[in-house]
């Protein structure tokens, strides 16, 4: 049932490539398409009146409806901008702290206990507090995302800064650079590739946390739309949103990975040429 479906599906730039690559790409789609076909079948026959299952074809229709009434774009826009602003805030604080703690053993030792006590607080525990302080809206979501993204960025940047070649720091000392100059001209260029790795991981965390905040409390965005579809007993719309959220997550992961690789290539070029 699934095999011909998968093979006839339009998967990637098939013709121009060699056969092994083509079959590899095709193979990746067999299982998802088989599962979708199975769900379509079950939802049309055995679970025709279910509040939880709906045929994927109807989910797609419901999603198209959300696109035409504008809710798809506005909810996606809300979630993505809250996640992005939270990531920006969290990673700015995290990178600044990480740079300080990475450059000075003393600072790292002083901050150790406070950081190790704050870091394991689950980000969702701050949702009620953020609700109390900011009320519903973008600010509460941004603050929770910022808290969640701060720690991984801090840890990665601290490790990156600590591992900067000691010889480069000796050069900075010989040139009598000020701490600010040293940070700008020596440390920052050295840790830039790993800073982007931190940002990429942070972006995945940011999206997950933003959607979670919307599901748990904040009446905005994609998470809330998913929750509302469930509460109004619209399984097609609910599964449509779930699929859309998954798609947005995959697209962001893919996009940031490509951006990071492109950047690493560009930064690598002068070194190779020189």
């Amino acid at each position: 049932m699934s095999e011909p479906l998968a093979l006839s599906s339009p998967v990637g730039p098939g013709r121009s490539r060699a056969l092994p690559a083509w079959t590899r790409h095709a193979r990746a789609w067999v299982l998802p398409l088989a599962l979708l076909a199975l769900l379509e079948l079950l939802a049309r026959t055995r679970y025709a009146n279910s509040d939880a299952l709906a045929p994927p074809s109807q989910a797609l229709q419901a999603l198209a409806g959300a696109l035409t009434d504008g809710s798809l774009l506005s909810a996606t826009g809300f979630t993505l901008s809250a996640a992005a602003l939270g990531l920006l805030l969290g990673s700015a604080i995290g990178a600044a702290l990480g740079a300080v703690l990475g450059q000075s053993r003393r600072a790292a030792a002083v901050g150790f206990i406070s950081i190790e006590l704050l870091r394991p607080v689950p980000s969702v525990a701050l949702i009620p507090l953020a609700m109390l302080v900011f009320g519903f809206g973008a600010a509460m979501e941004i603050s929770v995302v910022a808290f969640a993204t701060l720690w991984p960025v801090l840890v990665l940047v601290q490790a990156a800064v600590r591992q900067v070649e000691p010889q480069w720091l000796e050069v900075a000392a010989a040139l009598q650079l000020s701490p600010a100059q040293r940070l700008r001209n020596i440390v920052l260029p050295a840790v830039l590739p790993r800073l982007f790795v931190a940002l990429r991981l942070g972006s995945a965390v940011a999206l997950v946390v933003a959607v979670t905040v919307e599901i748990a409390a904040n009446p905005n965005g994609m998470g809330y739309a998913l929750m509302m579809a469930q509460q109004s007993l619209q399984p097609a719309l609910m599964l449509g949103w779930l699929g859309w959220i998954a798609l947005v997550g995959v697209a962001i992961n893919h996009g940031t990975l490509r951006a990071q690789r492109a950047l690493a290539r560009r930064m690598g070029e002068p070194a190779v040429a020189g």
Partner: protein
Amino acid sequence: MNHNTSRFSARDGASSLALLAGLLGLWWLAAHAQWVSKVFLPSPEAALTSLFDGLRDGELLSWTAATAGRMLAGWGLAGLLGVTLGAMIGQSPSARAWLQPTLELIRPLPASAVLPIAIAMFGLSPTMVLFVVAFGAMWPVLLATVHGLASVHPRLYEVAGALQLRPMQVVWRIGLPHALPDILAGLRLSMTVSLIVSVVGEMLASQGGLGQAILLAARSYQAGELYAGVVLLGLIGFISNGALAMAERRLLRWQRR
């Protein structure tokens, strides 16, 4: 990290504690000087009083136990399922080729996004929350196990072939020990996910626990109780993380020699 703690001298410890005391002092000052409204920021002693009162009358203690139990049960299930499924997929190159792209597609999906679907399917019940915790926390372990098994050196499989080991023995004696560092890292991430999904599940499905308690405290403007709950959640995270880090160090001692 490890080097950090081992070189932690008494002087460092004292200054580290001093910073913590300073931060607490700042909190005390901010609360008493009313820099921040009392509605958001209770004084440290008010939060501490709520914490001890709640622990003494047993309510807070039972919620803490409920949340920690949910987290551990979900994590245990996730670990069991993740390692088993991961070993089944990881030991066969063709299973990897067919299944791994789909697994990678599910990975970025927020675990809490499964909650509405689970509520629609199973209703608001403790089992439903446990199911979602286990489902959400399973992915880090599963993907780590697959990755760990996939990176076993082909030479080792040739050795296994020469020794005429059966496939189960290969997985058990060569594959899983090799994948252990990956699996332990996955289990650690999985513990964090378990705690998060437990808390969100309690908030949404009105299951008794710290998640529900802090949400209700915020809704009734009981800042002291809210902070007490957040402190306890932080403690659960701190202890579970620390215990796993310790277990990891002991289990991986053979690696470092």
